[in-house]
């Protein structure tokens, strides 16, 4: 019973707030209250879920009481639960930001209902134990993201909006083709049941093309090399709160799906990692960071850095040692908090300086000392400067790389880290130092809630850096569970298998 409630609670919190928000359409204050309260409820239920899963192990519930593998199963192992938790954190901060930063018109037009539908899709993807159901949650998430993107981006960004929609549809098609072939081979789509069926050498051989199809599908969604270009084209065009939410969560759902599929269905740990995936991850790091270096627009620089950071996470998966996987998990959690915050600060910079183009900004450190601190914390964390969370994430990943003797990848990771620091320094020098531009906009006051949201995330970044041991412990446990698919199978199918 506890499992039944706790696993559904995050989804219900999101869906309930979406419904309540839609019923209160057009009333800005009600939208704000429902939006923030709903995100708070999501966070609360996520905390309960993590505590429960940490105490009792993998939790499952069979929707509609149809036994697995026939019905839809929801599963939370520690990795899923942690992802839901960080989703709740990001949701609450972005909701507070949006409630204070957006004007009444944007809120009345239905920002929060779609915001919550998006969150429901994200949490559903983390919690589902069924491959087709994962596809459905992906689409729920994407449809909400289409609406949020095009509603806030304005007509000047139609081309990138179209690119976003088409590329994601293409990825969905790849995903669905993979699902079809897998069903033809194994006759089931329940992840645990699939893991059992694919354990037979014959089925594994027949399902090999599916691994490639799913890699492409999730690769597009995660923004892996060479299919990442839709991301930096579309994210900076969206509204600030929307782009922060996308930056934090959407690509990471792709990373989550990659980690789930390549530890459970096609276990990379049994194959001793994948050289091809290491190469893809390295190329992703390099391309993202080099492209970022050539940009001169705050959120566009940050968007390219999402790509390069995705490379780090996938590198952890590709090495597939316990240490590497744990550092990938740590990296994902750190990255979601840090990246969301950077996008929020990008919005504050735009407000304070009147622009996001580096050439039109300057001297913000003098005029806006608080904002400078807010930017510096996540930026240094992203680049991996101690004692912030990013340092610990990178350190463990490099250790894992050295252990696995992937020296080239380690070298690339270090070089990319330095280039990230360069990029962050560029934003710092151009926007916060230097001369104030001639026609600088008179300082508008920054919305207090938005500053609070960003400060909260910055504090969390510091806390994750100073108290890294605790989260590292959790990440290790999560990785250990991932590396033993039998535990997942037993939790879902019971003792029968």
């Amino acid at each position, binding site marked *: 019973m506890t499992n039944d409630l706790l696993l559904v609670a995050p989804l219900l919190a999101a869906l309930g707030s979406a419904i309540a928000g839609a019923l209160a359409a057009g009333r800005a204050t009600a939208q704000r209250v429902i939006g923030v309260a709903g995100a708070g409820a999501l966070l609360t239920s996520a905390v309960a879920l993590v505590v429960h899963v940490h105490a009792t192990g993998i939790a499952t519930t069979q929707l509609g009481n149809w036994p697995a593998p026939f019905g839809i199963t929801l599963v939370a192992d520690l990795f899923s639960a942690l992802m839901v938790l960080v989703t709740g954190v990001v949701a609450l901060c972005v909701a507070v930001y949006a409630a204070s930063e957006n004007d009444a018109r944007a809120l009345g037009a239905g920002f929060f209902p779609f915001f919550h539908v998006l969150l429901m899709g994200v949490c559903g993807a983390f919690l589902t134990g069924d491959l*087709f159901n994962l*596809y*459905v949650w992906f*689409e729920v998430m*994407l*449809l909400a993201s*289409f*609406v949020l993107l*095009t509603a806030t981006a304005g*007509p*000047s*960004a*139609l*081309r*990138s*909006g*179209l*690119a976003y*929609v*088409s590329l994601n*549809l*293409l990825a*969905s*098609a790849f995903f*669905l*083709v993979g*699902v*079809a*072939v897998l*069903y*033809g081979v194994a006759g089931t789509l329940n992840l645990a049941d699939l893991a059992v069926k694919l354990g037979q050498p014959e089925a594994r051989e027949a399902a090999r093309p599916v691994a490639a199809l799913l890699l492409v599908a999730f690769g597009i969604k995660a923004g892996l090399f060479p299919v990442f*270009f*839709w991301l*930096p*084209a*579309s994210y*900076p*065009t969206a509204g600030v709160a929307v782009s922060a939410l996308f930056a934090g969560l959407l690509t990471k759902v792709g990373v989550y799906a990659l980690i789930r599929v390549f530890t459970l269905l096609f276990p990379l740990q049994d194959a001793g990692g994948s050289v091809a995936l290491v190469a893809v991850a390295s190329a992703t790091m390099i391309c993202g960071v080099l492209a970022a270096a050539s940009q001169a627009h705050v959120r*566009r620089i940050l968007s390219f850095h999402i790509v390069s950071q995705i490379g780090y996470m996938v590198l952890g998966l590709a090495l597939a040692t316990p240490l590497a996987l744990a550092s990938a998990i740590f990296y994902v959690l750190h990255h979601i908090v840090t990246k969301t915050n950077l996008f929020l600060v990008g919005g504050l910079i735009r407000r304070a300086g009147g622009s996001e183009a580096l050439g039109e900004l300057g001297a913000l450190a003098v005029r806006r000392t608080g904002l400078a601190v807010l930017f510096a914390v996540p930026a240094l964390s992203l680049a991996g400067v101690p004692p912030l969370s990013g340092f610990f994430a990178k350190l463990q990943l490099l250790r894992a790389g050295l252990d696995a003797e992937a020296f080239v990848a380690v070298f690339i990771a270090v070089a990319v880290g330095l280039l990230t620091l360069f990029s962050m320094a560029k934003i710092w020098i151009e926007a916060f130092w230097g001369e104030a531009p001639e026609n600088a906009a008179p300082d508008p006051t920054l919305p207090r809630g938005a500053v609070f949201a960003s400060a909260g995330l910055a504090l969390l970044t510091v806390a994750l850096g100073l108290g890294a041991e605790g989260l590292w412990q959790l990440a290790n446990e999560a990785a250990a569970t991932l590396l033993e698919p039998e535990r997942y199978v037993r939790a879902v199918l019971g003792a029968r298998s």
Partner: protein
Amino acid sequence: MSLAVALAVGVVFAVSLRLLLQGTLWHLLLGLALLSHGTHLLLFAAGGLVAGGPPLALEGALAPAAGAADPLPQALVLTAIVIAFAVLAFALVLGLGAGRDAKTDDIDAYGGDRG
């Protein structure tokens, strides 16, 4: 039968790919529509094509009669069709606005970043 459907899926995918690479709005939308149709057909075929009866249990029986078709791919296809319908409807509206604002259906002429 399977071969015929497989060939059909191949042709649909080939045509949709050609359309997607055309670079104009309406070709893009048609290509996306065809792409999802091809996927649905494949999903349907992957469940095994049998000329079986409907997967319905008769009054009093616990299971459908032997030789009934597998109902799951049908359910999956139905779900996928609904989703594809929604996404495509959205893409159409988006395209409609784009085409009207830019007065052309050449995608490269639209505003925004060159991805």
